[in-house]
C-alpha cells in the first residue's frame, strides 16, 4: 500500500503526541508528501494566518515511495505557510530523515500550536514524546544532531533541526537534516523556530511493509534503476560533476545572473564551476572536491562532498571546518558567488558550510547579500551601516555577512529578513530580485524565457524546482526548446509544474526526471499503492495539486499582481551574450499561461477547471 496509514499529530501548546489514521480518501486524490500534506494544511489552517503565529501548522511528510527500494526514495517535505513568502510553502529534502520516518511507522507528522519552552520531538517507532530542548537551544544544527545522538546513545537516529537562524526567526531559515541536506526554501525553519521546536529525532526499525504487489514493485523499481544507470545524464554526468556543472553552461548562454542581476555573465564563472572543484589547488595540491554522495536509496548520487582549503582566510583559525562536508551545489555556488560577483571558491564553500551549520537557505541568503551590495554601491547603505565594506566581489564581506546573519548580529538581522523587506526598508523595493518575496535561483529570465514564467507563477515564490524548464530550454530534456523565445512556454511551464507535483508527492527526487518521465514512475506507484495510478490519474493529480496550492494563495490575499518579475527583468535588457538586448516577456506569457491553466484573466481557476479537478 506504500503508505503506513498513520499520522502523528503533535500539539506543541498542550505537549501531546497523538496517532491518527491517514485520510485514505485524500491519499487517493493527492498521493502523498507535497500533495497530501498540502491538502491537510489547506483543510486545517486559515490561509490568512500569520506564518509565525501558533495558528500556523507545519507538516513533515513522506510519500508512498519514501523508504522503499525505488531509486531516490528518501525524500520528505515540509509543508506550511511560508515565513518568507506568506504563500503556501513546500520544501523538499533528501538525506535519510524521510526514510526513517517511514521505518518508524509514520507517513507524516503534523505540528500545531506553540510550545511554551524549547522542545524536541523524539520518535522511536510507535513511541513519540516531546522532550526538553533547553540544552539544545542556541546550538547549531550540527551540534544539535551530535548531542541528540549521543544523549540517546544511538548514532543511527536521524535528526532534522533548526540552527540560530531559525531560532532568531530569520525569514529564510531552513531545516537541516543529516548535516548538509535541507528543506531549504520559503522560511520553513523560521516557522519551526516560532513554535519553539528545535529538532525532530527519529528512529525506526520497522522497515517498509505493505507494498501492494511486491514482485511487481521490485521489477518496476529495478527497471527504473536501469533507465537511470543507462542514461548518460543520471548515470554519468550528475555523479561525476554534480549540478555545479551548469555554471559554465549558463554563463556561456548569457543567463547567469551576476551582481544582483545587473549582468548576465560572470567573468569568474570558471573559477567557481564544477571544473574548478576538480582542479588541484596551488596551496595544498588537493582538489576541492573529495567525492560524490547519495541520499537514501539513490542510484544517481549527485551530492558533492568537499574539503575547504585550510589556509583560506575564512577558516585558517577554525579547524572545525577543515573536514569533508557537503557542497558546493550549483544553486549555492551561484547565489553566494555570481550573484555577489564573488569568484573565490573557498569563500563560497565557507559561506555554504555556515548556511548548513546554522540553518539558512544559501539561495535567499546569497541573493540578499547581492541586493545589499547593490544598495551599498548606490550609496544607500554605508559601510558603517553594514559593518563591513560590502562591495561587489568582496569575499571578505561575504564571509563576514554570513557570520553576522547566522548569529543574528548587527546588520545580519536585517539581511535575515530577506531582500524584499531589506530593499523596501531602504526605499528601493525594485532591487529585490524576487517573486512573492522569495529570491530567484540561478537562471536569468531574460536569457531563458520559460524559467522567468516559472518563477513568476511558482506557488511558493521564485523557484526553479516547481517547473524546471531548464531541462528543456537548456538541456533538451525531453525535447529542446529555444530559450530566447516566449512562444510555447506557457504550455511548457504548465507541463513541468504538473509533472513535478507528482514526483514530489511520490517521495522521489525530481532529478530522476532527467531520465524518467511519469511513465517510468507510474509502474512503481501502481505496484506499491492500492487503487488506480494510471497515467491519466497521475496527470490529473499533478494538476489538482497545483490548483489547490493556487487557491490557498488566492485565499491568503495574493492576486495576479503577485505573478510578476521585478522591473529590472522587464525593462533593463541583458547586456551581453545571446540574450543581449532582450528583456523578459513575462507580461506576454502570463495571459496565455492563465488560459492554458483554465484560469480567468485575473488568474483565478475557473469553475469548470475546479470541477474537472475535483476541487
Amino acid at each position: 500500500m506504500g503508505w503506513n496509514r498513520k499520522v502523528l499529530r503533535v500539539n506543541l501548546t498542550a505537549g501531546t503526541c497523538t496517532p491518527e489514521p491517514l485520510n485514505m480518501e485524500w491519499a487517493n486524490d493527492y498521493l502523498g508528501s507535497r500533495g497530501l500534506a498540502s491538502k491537510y494544511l489547506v483543510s486545517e489552517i486559515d490561509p490568512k494566518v500569520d506564518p509565525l503565529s501558533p495558528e500556523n501548522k507545519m507538516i513533515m511528510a513522506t510519500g508512498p515511495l519514501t523508504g522503499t527500494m525505488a531509486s531516490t526514495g528518501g525524500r520528505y517535505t515540509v509543508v506550511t505557510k511560508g515565513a518568507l513568502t506568506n504563500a503556501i510553502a513546500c520544501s523538499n529534502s533528501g538525506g535519510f530523515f524521510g526514510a526513517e520516518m517511514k521505518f518508524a511507522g509514520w507517513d507524516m507528522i503534523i505540528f500545531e500550536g506553540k510550545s511554551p519552552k524549547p522542545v524536541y520531538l523524539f520518535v522511536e517507532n510507535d513511541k513519540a514524546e516531546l522532550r526538553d530542548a533547553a540544552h539544545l537551544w542556541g546550538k547549531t544544527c550540527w551540534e544539535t544532531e551530535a548531542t541528540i545522538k549521543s544523549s540517546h546513545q544511538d548514532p543511527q537516529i536521524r535528526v532534522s533541526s533548526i540552527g540560530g537562524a531559525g531560532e532568531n526567526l530569520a525569514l529564510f531559515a531552513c531545516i537541516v537534516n543529516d548535516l548538509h541536506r535541507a528543506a531549504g526554501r520559503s522560511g520553513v525553519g523560521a516557522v519551526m523556530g516560532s513554535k519553539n521546536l528545535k529538532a525532530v529525532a527519529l528512529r525506526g526499525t520497522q522497515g517498509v511493509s505493505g507494498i501492494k504487489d511486491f514482485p511487481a514493485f521490485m521489477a518496476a523499481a529495478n527497471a527504473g534503476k536501469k533507465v537511470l544507470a543507462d542514461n548518460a545524464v543520471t548515470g554519468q554526468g550528475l555523479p561525476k560533476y554534480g549540478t555545479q556543472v551548469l555554471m559554465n553552461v549558463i554563463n556561456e548562454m548569457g543567463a547567469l545572473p551576476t551582481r544582483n542581476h545587473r549582468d548576465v555573465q560572470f567573468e569568474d564563472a570558471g573559477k567557481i564551476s564544477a571544473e574548478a572543484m576538480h582542479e588541484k589547488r596551488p596551496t595544498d595540491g588537493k582538489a576541492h572536491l573529495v567525492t560524490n554522495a547519495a541520499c537514501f536509496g539513490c542510484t544517481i548520487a549527485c551530492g558533492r562532498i568537499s574539503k575547504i582549503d585550510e589556509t583560506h582566510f575564512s577558516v585558517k583559525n577554525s579547524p572545525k571546518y577543515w573536514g569533508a562536508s557537503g557542497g558546493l551545489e550549483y544553486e549555492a555556488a551561484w547565489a553566494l558567488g555570481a550573484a555577489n560577483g564573488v569568484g573565490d571558491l573557498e569563500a563560497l564553500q565557507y559561506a555554504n558550510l555556515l548556511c548548513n551549520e546554522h540553518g539558512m537557505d544559501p539561495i535567499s541568503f546569497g541573493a540578499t547579500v547581492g541586493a545589499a551590495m547593490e544598495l551599498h554601491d548606490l550609496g544607500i547603505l554605508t559601510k558603517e551601516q553594514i559593518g563591513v565594506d560590502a562591495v561587489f566581489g568582496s569575499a571578505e564581506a561575504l564571509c563576514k555577512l554570513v557570520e553576522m546573519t547566522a548569529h543574528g548580529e548587527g546588520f545580519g538581522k536585517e539581511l535575515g529578513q530577506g531582500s524584499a523587506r531589506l530593499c523596501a526598508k531602504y526605499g528601493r523595493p525594485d532591487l529585490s530580485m524576487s517573486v512573492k518575496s522569495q529570491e530567484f535561483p540561478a537562471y536569468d529570465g531574460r536569457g531563458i524565457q520559460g524559467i522567468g514564467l516559472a518563477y513568476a507563477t511558482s506557488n511558493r515564490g521564485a523557484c526553479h524546482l516547481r517547473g524546471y524548464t531548464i531541462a528543456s530550454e537548456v538541456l533538451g530534456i525531453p525535447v529542446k526548446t529555444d530559450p530566447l523565445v516566449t512562444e510555447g512556454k506557457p504550455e511548457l511551464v504548465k507541463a513541468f509544474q504538473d509533472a513535478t507535483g507528482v514526483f514530489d508527492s511520490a517521495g522521489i527526487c525530481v532529478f530522476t526526471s532527467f531520465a524518467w518521465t511519469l511513465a517510468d514512475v507510474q509502474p512503481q506507484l501502481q505496484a506499491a499503492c492500492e487503487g488506480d495510478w494510471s497515467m491519466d490519474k497521475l496527470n490529473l493529480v499533478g494538476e489538482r495539486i497545483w490548483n489547490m496550492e493556487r487557491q490557498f494563495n488566492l485565499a491568503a490575499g495574493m492576486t495576479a499582481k503577485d505573478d510578476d518579475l521585478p522591473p529590472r527583468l522587464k525593462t533593463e535588457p541583458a547586456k551581453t551574450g545571446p540574450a543581449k538586448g532582450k528583456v523578459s516577456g513575462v507580461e506576454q506569457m502570463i495571459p496565455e499561461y492563465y488560459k492554458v491553466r483554465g484560469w480567468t484573466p485575473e488568474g483565478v481557476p475557473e469553475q469548470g477547471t475546479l470541477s474537472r479537478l475535483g476541487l
Partner: protein
Amino acid sequence: MRVTVKLYATLSDYLPAGSKNNRLEVEVAEGVTVNAVLASFLLPPKLTHLVLLNGVFIPPEARATTSVAEGNIIAVWPPIAGG
C-alpha cells in the same frame, strides 16, 4: 581565422595537455563548419552532446552546415544536468 573551442567536464581530456580554463584558440580556414572545427579534437560522438556557438544551441543535425566566423566561441559538454 581564429576561433575559440571550449571543452567542459570530461571533455577537457580532449584538450592538449597544459590547456588552461578549458579553452583553446585554433586557427581554421574561412567558412568552416562547427563539425569541421570539432573534428580535430577527436571527440567521441556520444559525448559531443551540448554544443553552443557563441552561447546559442546548435542542434546535432545543424552542426555540419553551420559555419563559424572569426572570433566565434564553440563550447561543448557531454550529457550533463543541474538543478
